[in-house]
């Protein structure tokens, strides 16, 4: 078991008090690809931010790797995220000041458990895996959306986290690139034994996941 939630409730206080999540309990294991889908405003993004520990303002329990997230101080949480969670966003979010390779290396340089050479080697290996090795030296802003998203997946994997969170990873991509990205995420789940959580609108993704969760009005539809 990598991730487990118990009875998570979440309220937005502005513009007026409004319950976004109701009694969310779920668990995700290694090698599982879970997709969360639902209409806009159903709470799937909010749930994703809570699962990714970016948002800690909720009621209920969240355990990742047997660690109660609520017990961590903000800086311990940052370190925890660095080590155990990888992110892929809808809008790729590579840092344009850095090269493709540097973007992939950044989380590992923060973790600083390996030498720079080792990190570089790992990063190049990952870039190879996502088919982007040839672009390693390029400034990241020169890449297309699909290419950036592949690099973002390599970046999410660099610290070998147990959990990958992807927020609409194909939302901004054409058909071909969407399929490519999904295939990559599926491959990671299988070959690397990660738990992957994807928030998506794409029926192809939620129909092909190990498990798909539909969100309606802040609750999981069973």
């Amino acid at each position, binding site marked *: 078991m990598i991730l487990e939630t118990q009875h998570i409730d979440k309220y937005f206080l502005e513009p007026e008090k409004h319950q976004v999540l109701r009694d969310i309990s779920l668990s995700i294991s290694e090698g599982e690809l879970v997709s969360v889908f639902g209409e806009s405003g159903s709470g799937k993004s909010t749930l994703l931010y809570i699962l*990714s520990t970016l948002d800690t303002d909720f009621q209920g329990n969240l355990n990742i790797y047997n660690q109660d997230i609520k017990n961590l101080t903000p*800086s311990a949480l940052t370190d925890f995220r660095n080590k155990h969670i990888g*992110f892929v966003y809808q809008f790729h*979010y590579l840092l344009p000041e850095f090269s493709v390779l540097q973007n992939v290396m950044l989380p590992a340089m923060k973790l600083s458990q390996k030498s720079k050479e080792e990190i570089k080697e790992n990063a190049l290996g990952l870039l190879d895996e996502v088919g982007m090795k040839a672009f390693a030296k390029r400034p990241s802003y020169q890449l297309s959306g699909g290419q950036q998203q592949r690099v973002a997946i390599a970046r999410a994997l660099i*610290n070998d986290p147990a959990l990958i969170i992807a927020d609409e990873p194909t939302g901004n991509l054409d058909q071909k690139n969407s399929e490519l990205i999904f295939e990559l995420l599926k491959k990671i789940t299988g070959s690397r034994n990660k738990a992957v959580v994807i928030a998506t609108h794409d029926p192809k993704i939620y129909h092909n996941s190990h498990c798909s969760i539909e969100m309606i009005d802040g609750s999981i539809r069973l």
Partner: protein
Amino acid sequence: MSKQVFNKTNIFIALQYLFARKKQSFLAAIGVLLGVTTFIVMINFMTGVNDFLDDAVFNGSPDIIVSAKSKKQSTTTSNILSNYIENSNKVDDVLKADENVQSFAHQIISPAILISESKQFPGSINGIFPAQESNMVDLERRLIEGEGFQSLLKENSILLGVSLAKRLQISTGDEIKMILPNGKNTALKVAGVFSFGITTIDNVRTYVSATTLQNLLGKKNSITNIHVKLKDRDDVRLKSYLAENINGIVTEDWKDSNKTIVIGNKVRDILTWSVSFALLLVAGFGIYNILNITVIQKRKDIAVLKTIGYSSNDIVFIFLVQSLIIGVLGAFFGGFFGYIISYLISTTPLDTSDFIIVDTYPINFKMSYYILGFFFGILTTIFAGYFPSKKASKVDPVTIIRGI
């Protein structure tokens, strides 16, 4: 702070951001550079002038002057007609007992007409005791030619201020005639010429041995002035103590005699600090603006850095390092250019005015001003960088990612 934020990775990220905006970073550094350069040049020049005047005036004249109370009119150092101090022993006792007195010297001062082969001018003749006076005035440093006070151990020798010597068209070794108010005249040999750099002194002052002057005036063992040098010049309580407790004397301190110079020094100080401060403030705003804009433009990137494991403290450090690098570069080159400009000023010939005599502008190259300027520059950038950095660290990743 759970982890050390000062690490290679954070510095690498900071540098990467800095180089991505070379032009703005460069301009910000130029701002600091101008501030520090101006500070250095101004403080070098202003304190140079201050020190020059202090040195010339305060070392050329005593801190406290004791003279006899005039029965007719008020007395000044150069205009005394036979007013002799009667209670000099009592004054000496007080001076010897006072801890703030560094040294003191007796003088007999008289006006006289000095006559060379071609010219004649009035002068103020200071009859001094060489052993005492050498503790008061460092004449060796002021000598242009000839010998200092020790030459006055010989009878009938005279030391002259450079302007007076020039006007009399005489130099060391020449003879001049001196006519005293009582009609006595005598021939004196010029033993040396000195310059304090202040026209009012160099134009009139001469030194002869006190015994020579006493003999000529027929006033053995009489003196007109006692000059006092203090350890702490600002503590002039002694001045009023003497005047109140000993009859027949008046006292004057350096503040009374040099009011315009004291005020001038203050004005120059205020000018230096306020102008430098204003310039550094402007430079600081430059840095603040650039970093602030960067933080606003880079909110997404900051959010990403936070999600991939960079803490708020890392973010503060990354942005603060950028402003610090701008500050260090600006301050360093500011000090460098400040030195060059100060040096150029110090070699610029200065037309001698009526007030001071000096070949080039006086400049004070004191190291501490360079250190001060450097730290001022850096302090400004730390202040200017802190607020945008703090703002950056408060970026909430969820808001940013959701807000797209």
